[in-house]
């Protein structure tokens, strides 16, 4: 890595902490982001990179924010209070310890008073510094729409009086639910990008950004087993990134993946997090989802998949969080345990009208229909999946299966 790339990476890594500390003091997300952007640009322009990048960024950003406020000649009292602190830092010329306000910022970005669909975009924008075009692509909306959503959310944070204080502990369950849901939406969106097409087009590794955010949430809330469970889930999904595509760029289904291509550091990390979560003695949907993925990961060690265990876990998940997609996954596990016929019966009992737009539904149906010898219907199901416009990697995979049935 060149020194310049190293500095850029250090600036990105420092961002959550520095922006959070700025936001907590300035009580304005835009001001915090602008000040950080200016200080990051100034940092890159330095002849020599600073020794302590986060501290340099924090002090420089704070000074710039104060200048901006002075220029606006507003909120005189706040300027005085902040100016005193800043002048002290100037006099001492020692790096200020950066207060850790990341949890506060996370709770603000994922506030339940904000629409659920804007929380993850706001967190990715403000905390991770992901550019709006990338976020728009991730959530499959147009750039102007996403820009407007984020702008509106920031305005609401500013104007509606959303607290910049950490919520009291008793409110955490409700608040945590909003944080985890935001993260799950980001994860689902990033994971749908099997071929990394979005990431390549944007020169941003979206999966890595979502993983970074998930690990941050788990680090900040180590007492919350569901936060650990979700982070483990993200790690397990990411552990297979190197095995999800074949040489031609087609998607490789989980059961066909070459386990030698999995990332065992991530699997081990996920496992440790799940052990930690289990110690809290409070299970939940994210822990169960992670357990399902860990059961799949065990194929690398055991050589086979314990489908009975997977089925039992889907049964638990279905009671904790019933949804047609979970029921669909359960039907596939059932097919492995009791045969394709049983799986197909379970699948046909699902509410088709709610799944007709879901490509996995048609792909799963095709798989089970082919196994019970109903080849014509299997082909039709694959055609239905292809008609829904899958991304390239998935399209190649579906086409290969379609060809193998002819």
């Amino acid at each position, binding site marked *: 890595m060149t020194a310049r790339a190293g500095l850029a990476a250090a600036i990105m890594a420092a961002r959550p902490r520095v922006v959070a500390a700025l936001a907590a003091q300035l009580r304005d997300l835009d001001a915090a982001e602008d000040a950080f952007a200016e200080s990051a640009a100034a940092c890159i322009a330095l002849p020599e990179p600073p020794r302590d990048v986060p501290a340099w960024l924090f002090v420089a950003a704070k000074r710039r924010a104060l200048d901006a406020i002075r220029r606006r000649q507003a909120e005189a009292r706040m300027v005085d209070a902040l100016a005193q602190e800043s002048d002290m830092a100037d006099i001492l010329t020692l790096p200020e310890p950066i207060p850790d306000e990341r949890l506060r910022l996370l709770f603000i970005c994922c506030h339940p*008073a904000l629409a659920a669909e804007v929380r993850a975009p706001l967190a990715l924008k403000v905390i991770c510094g992901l550019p709006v075009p990338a976020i728009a692509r991730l959530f499959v909306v147009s750039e102007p729409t996403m820009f407007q959503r984020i702008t509106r959310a920031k305005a609401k944070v500013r*104007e*509606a*009086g*959303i*607290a910049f*204080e950490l919520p009291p502990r008793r*409110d955490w369950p409700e608040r945590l639910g909003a944080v985890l849901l935001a993260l799950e939406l980001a994860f689902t969106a990033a994971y749908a990008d099997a071929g990394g097409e979005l990431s390549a087009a944007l020169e941003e590794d979206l999966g890595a950004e979502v993983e970074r955010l998930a690990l941050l949430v788990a680090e900040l809330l180590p007492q919350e087993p569901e936060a650990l469970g979700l982070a483990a889930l993200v790690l397990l999904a990411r552990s297979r990134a190197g095995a999800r595509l074949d040489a031609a760029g087609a998607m490789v289904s989980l059961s066909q993946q070459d386990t030698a291509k999995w990332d065992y550091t991530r699997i081990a990390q996920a496992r440790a997090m799940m052990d930690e979560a289990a110690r809290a003695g409070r299970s939940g949907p994210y822990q169960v989802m992670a357990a399902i993925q860990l059961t799949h990961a065990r194929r690398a060690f055991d050589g086979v998949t314990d489908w009975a265990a997977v089925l039992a876990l889907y049964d638990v998940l279905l009671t904790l969080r019933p949804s047609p997609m979970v029921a669909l996954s359960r039907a596939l596990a059932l097919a492995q345990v009791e045969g394709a016929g049983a799986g197909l019966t379970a699948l046909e009992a699902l509410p088709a009208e709610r799944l007709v737009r879901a490509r996995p539904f048609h792909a799963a149906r095709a798989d089970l229909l082919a196994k019970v010898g109903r080849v014509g219907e299997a082909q039709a199901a694959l055609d239905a999946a292809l008609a829904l416009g899958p991304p390239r990697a998935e399209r190649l995979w579906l086409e290969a299966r379609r060809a193998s049935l002819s």
Partner: protein
Amino acid sequence: MQFMLMINEDESAYGGPEGAALLEATLAGHMQLAQDLVAAGIPFSGERLKPAATATTVKFDAGAVSLHDGPFAETHEELGGFYIIDVASLDEAIAWAKRIPVPKGGIEVRPIWPMEG
């Protein structure tokens, strides 16, 4: 900062055989809430409004003024009353809004535009 907590409720909940008892319980809830606000030292005011059937709406359209018999919007929930409270944040305002007795309906929480200077 100041917030207005607008009580939008289904008036018909107070009709029917159980209505009188429900209204009594709701009013008692408001009395309790007012006491709690006083005890918490929170500046507040609030009023109960007469039923939406008593409302008259003055409508403006391109300079023309007309009167309309009824509330501004014909919905199942009507503005039945409001509180104005002075608290530190939206979070605190929401916490108080959750304690307002509403048999059926919702509370709209809105920051009040601060007076300059």
